[in-house]
């Protein structure tokens, strides 16, 4: 008889693993990497802190979090779906209405994978125990208070506060 094979579900908190993600972009395509990685880390029992700063504020501003946009202006990797290597003409990205079209396209592709929109994704992270923090300087620049931000945001804190509370964490800047 062999020994019983049992998966090891050692709690990451016991190993002290911690992840800090700085979200500094407000484009639809740049919102997702942080959200997806945060979700993956939470599912592994890792303590996760997200710090929203500058354009990343659009991800947690109640006015904008459901309306992030995608433009491929300046992104030479953009191709028609399924046509790899065939770049979209950059000039077209600047045409009126093009951002609305590309945003709609990207939102559909994300929804097709059953990945939630940004506000629902924040709910998922909040429910999974993520700690979300808003940048003090960004809030002051944009004249925003806590009540303007997603309910799950813990507080508006300084960069120093964030560095302190993520002592020993692995860090991602997005």
């Amino acid at each position, binding site marked *: *008889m*062999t*020994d*019983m*094979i*049992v*998966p*090891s*579900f050692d*709690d*990451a*908190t016991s190993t002290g693993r911690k992840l800090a993600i700085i979200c500094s972009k407000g484009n639809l395509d740049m919102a997702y990497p942080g959200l*997806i990685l945060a*979700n*993956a880390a939470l*599912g*592994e*029992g890792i303590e996760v802190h997200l710090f929203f700063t500058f354009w990343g504020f659009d991800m947690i501003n109640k006015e904008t979090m459901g309306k992030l946009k995608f433009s491929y202006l300046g992104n030479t990797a953009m191709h028609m779906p399924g046509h790899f290597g065939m770049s979209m003409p950059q000039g077209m990205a600047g045409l009126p209405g093009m951002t609305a079209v590309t945003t709609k396209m990207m939102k559909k592709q994300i929804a097709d*994978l*059953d*990945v*939630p929109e940004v506000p629902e*994704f924040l709910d*998922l992270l909040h*429910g*999974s*125990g993520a700690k979300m923090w808003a940048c003090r300087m960004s809030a002051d620049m944009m004249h925003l208070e806590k009540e303007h931000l997603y309910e799950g945001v813990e507080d508006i804190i300084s960069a120093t506060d964030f560095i302190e509370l993520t002592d020993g964490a692995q860090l991602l800047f997005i």
Partner: protein
Amino acid sequence: MPTTTIAGRQIDVDAEGFLTKPEQWDEELAQTLAANIGITLTDAHWVPIHFLRKDFETQKETATLRRVSTVGGIPVKDLFALFPGKPAKKMSYIAGLQKPKGCV
């Protein structure tokens, strides 16, 4: 693929210990699987486990945490409370399924 003896039965598992043949699972086995990872099953635990089993029948893959929440109607917060630390993996292990492959 290795086999292991769980509750006096020969069970097919992968290298980590997740069941590879969902049909070898029953509720009695689930009790032992749960005990293996330090969980005592209550009525609240059975709701997501039954959902996973039922969902697997039609989807042929293990539901992600989000699917258990949105389709199964169990808040993510509750799942973290029932299966601390790594809810998606712990639930699928007890339900005799592979861990979920989806990213979200």
